[in-house]
């Protein structure tokens, strides 16, 4: 229960910031991708800088995760071809719709009806992937099992 509440709370903070920073607006995203505005790059770089410093500190402190009690660590994800091909497909969609999964969700929250089409596409794309490949690629729920990293098994199943 507390884990779900934590997810909900972090999601609310994320949704408010994505909205307030204008990331929900396709015009703002397009201005960034056409190098007409530096906002997105400054925003993204400062987020990565704080996250990198914070993760370094959290790992360095060697504490256990406060809600799950697990030791805080993560496996290194080896680079595979799917990371590149997947990101090319994603980048094409992103450059056309000027929204990635986060803003697609905040468009829904703000009641942007055009975004329902993109949302439907994402659901179809994710559903198709889960059905065709039948594997979870997201390391969001990664469990440290020690080397070899779980990515090896994923890679073998994705190679089919």
């Amino acid at each position, binding site marked *: 229960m507390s*884990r779900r509440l934590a*997810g909900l709370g*972090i999601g609310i*903070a*994320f*949704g408010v*910031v*994505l909205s*307030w920073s204008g990331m*929900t*607006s396709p015009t703002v995203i*397009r201005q960034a991708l056409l190098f007409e505005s530096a906002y997105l790059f*400054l*925003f*993204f770089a*400062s*987020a*990565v800088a*704080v*996250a*990198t410093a*914070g993760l370094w500190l*959290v790992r360095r402190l060697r504490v256990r*995760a*406060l809600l*799950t009690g697990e030791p805080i660590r993560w496996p*290194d*994800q080896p680079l595979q071809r799917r*990371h*590149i*091909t*997947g*990101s090319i497909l*994603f*980048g094409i*969609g992103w*450059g*056309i*719709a000027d929204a*990635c*999964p*986060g803003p697609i969700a*905040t468009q829904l*929250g*703000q009641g*942007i009806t*055009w975004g329902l*089409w*993109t*949302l439907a*596409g*994402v659901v179809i794309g*994710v*559903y*198709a*992937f*889960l*059905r065709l490949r039948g594997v979870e*690629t997201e390391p*969001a729920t990664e469990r440290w099992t020690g080397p070899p990293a779980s990515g090896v098994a994923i890679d073998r199943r994705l190679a089919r």
Partner: protein
Amino acid sequence: MLHPQMPWYAAGPVLGLCVVACRLLLNGRLGITGGFSEVVGRLRARSLDFDWRGWLLIGLIVGAAGYALAAGGPDFHGYGWLTAALRGSDRALIAPILLVAGVLIGYGSKLAGGCTSGNGLSGTAMLSRASLAATATFFATGIAVSFITRAIA
């Protein structure tokens, strides 16, 4: 944008702290594609028993709805370059274009193991080589597609 924009030096760090909170509380990697995957996967199994990733996605929608209520409406009207470029009878093209773009976004980010949040933000902060390569790839592709569509439209 119709509403005032939060300064980047405040918005960016809060987003970064969300990534740290996910790790410190749950030992998890913050990623919105993971949330979509969790919700779609559970619904496919006829279950509503979402884990924290599903609730992260729900929180995102709730946060955006709260923002729109507080700000007095959504942040924009129309849909960016698509509603500006496609007028009259061409308007009917926007829905299928967005649908196909959505499929590419959903399938592509699942294949890549993350989108702008999972690979771009969290994975980069984890110094993951796969995420760094993925981030460089989707930024380069998104930029190229934007310039190409501007030349066409």
